[in-house]
């Protein structure tokens, strides 16, 4: 089975029924998507599939063989962070940080589709994702900041 992850095709030997989360973490050694519940209730495993936010913990790999999977690692790196990663660092939007990659991917999906999403829409979009440490205020600020950074980047692109 071949999977397209962050723009690269990978040959996966795991059972096709394996949830995508384990393929990402165990086969591809990607750390960002996390196991939080395995039930689609907490969002720590959120990744993008063809630009849509998806719970990777309940998505069998076989379902998405011909789709584009994007994880946090695909958005940027420490050396070259994407706007959403920059925003979360600048806002110091994390306590334990375990839920944060899922939050970022959920926000990324929203802002890719709706760059002008307002604060209420951001809140509503993040509803499927849980944060137990109580970092929600910072997460909201960080997503707002990412929205601004993306807008500037877009404007920059156009000049």
């Amino acid at each position, binding site marked *: 089975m071949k999977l397209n992850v962050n723009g690269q095709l990978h040959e996966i030997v795991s059972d*096709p029924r394996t949830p995508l989360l384990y393929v990402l973490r165990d086969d591809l050694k990607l750390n960002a998507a996390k196991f939080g519940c395995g039930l689609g209730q907490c969002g720590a495993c959120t990744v993008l599939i063809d630009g849509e936010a998806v719970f990777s913990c309940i998505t069998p790999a076989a379902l998405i063989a011909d789709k584009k999977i994007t994880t946090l690692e695909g958005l940027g790196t420490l050396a070259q962070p994407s706007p959403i990663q920059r925003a979360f660092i600048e806002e110091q939007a994390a306590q334990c940080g375990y839920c944060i990659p899922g939050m970022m991917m959920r926000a990324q999906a929203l802002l890719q589709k709706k760059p002008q999403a307002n604060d209420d829409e951001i809140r509503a979009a993040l509803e499927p994702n849980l944060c137990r440490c109580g970092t929600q205020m910072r997460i909201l600020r960080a997503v707002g900041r990412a929205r601004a950074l993306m807008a500037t980047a877009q404007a920059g692109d156009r000049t």
Partner: protein
Amino acid sequence: MSVTRIARSVGIICVVLALALAVGLGAFLIAARQPAIDPITPPPANSFAPDLLKRGAQLAALGNCDVCHTAVGGRPFAGGRALPTPFGAIYATNITPDVDTGIGNWSEAAFKRAMRHGVRRDGAYLYPAFPYDHFTRVSDDDAKAIYAYLMTREPVRAVAPANELPFPLNVRSLMFGWDLLFLRPGPFRPDKNHDATWNRGAYLVEGLGHCGACHTPRNFLGAEKSDQDLSGGESEGWTAYALNAGSPAPVQWNADTLAHYLAFGFDASHGVARGPMAEVADDLHALPEPDIRAIAAYLADRAGHARPAVSEIERQRAVQMQRGKTGAANSADSQASIGAADATHDDGAAIYLSACAGCHEGPRAVPFGGIDLALSSGVAGPNATNLFNVVLHGLPAADATHAPVMPGFGAAMNDAQLVALARYLRARFTDKEPWPDVEQSLREARSATRAATTRSAPSDRLMPPSTKPGAGNEAQR
């Protein structure tokens, strides 16, 4: 006089008459309305007896006033919710006791007239999106109680958006004609051939419950087909299953299972209430138990016509729903270990086994575990609409309440996969004919925004009694 001159005169007279007739008819239509009832100053909240208010709250819950008359994220009863109809969107109005924008200046008589005849205080006709064709059956006493309840809600200043109806449907007085054809005004009359419980149930269902508003098919003028009462209908993109002998439920509903479902939002042999029914089930929890039992008894009777006795298959299925609950859901996790698909050439089977069976064949009981799909009306029903709604959007977590949660697969699965899955489920879990229009159902399900109504009934009633004031363990009702 010459012939031409006579002819011309006759012609002129005819034209004038026709014009007059047209103008008159037009004027009549445009102006047709009932007399206005004088506005009043809103009665103070303490002018209503507490018992009356309590009764009114229960009746308003049964009538789901709050569901239609509250916008998503809006203030209770302040209107603004769009009700999709084949003719265009109609917006529910503000029924808080606000004087300027609500019903604060409506007298009790005006309210009763609205319920009984579908007429506004100012005499204009209401659209039957407001189901006055059902509410007309409500007794005067009950209407009084509902009036008291509504007049003691928090007043909110809010104006609903204008209805999106094309001409001439936006001319309210046309409803005069609709009412002539389809409204049978007047309170409910008991049927002497049935007992008090049945009649109570009938009164509640046919009146405030307005079950037929969703569960009965409608004609091209949007009226319920009275000869197909409770034969199944639709609501906001969901199929409302037949409640009569045409019920597609694999296990026949009876009075007990219906009562449990209505009271708690789920039944072990049928699954959880979701879509618009989730909101109905939420509201019904407020009803006293005798009323729930009466509704269940009446509907069970309607469902029971010409159905055979519970068959062996149904009995086994009912046992299935216990589903080896000895192995507790928390000793490992709450999903089943499913062996590799042997039907590897059947995509639907593979999808089911990898994405669904973990929960739907797992050790966790309904409502928090997935229903055994052999018991599901979504799979046995007349179309794949509800199945797709749930598979696409799941059942999102309810805020701060115990409620079943199911992830949606709309982003993970493409159309081919969803169609294959639906076909497989239909074939595997029912012995019914394949659905003829699966692709169309999916297209429609994907195109509408269903998220707002895909939630399940919050099962607060399943919360431990220690968080419920006073009561004992209500889960054992």
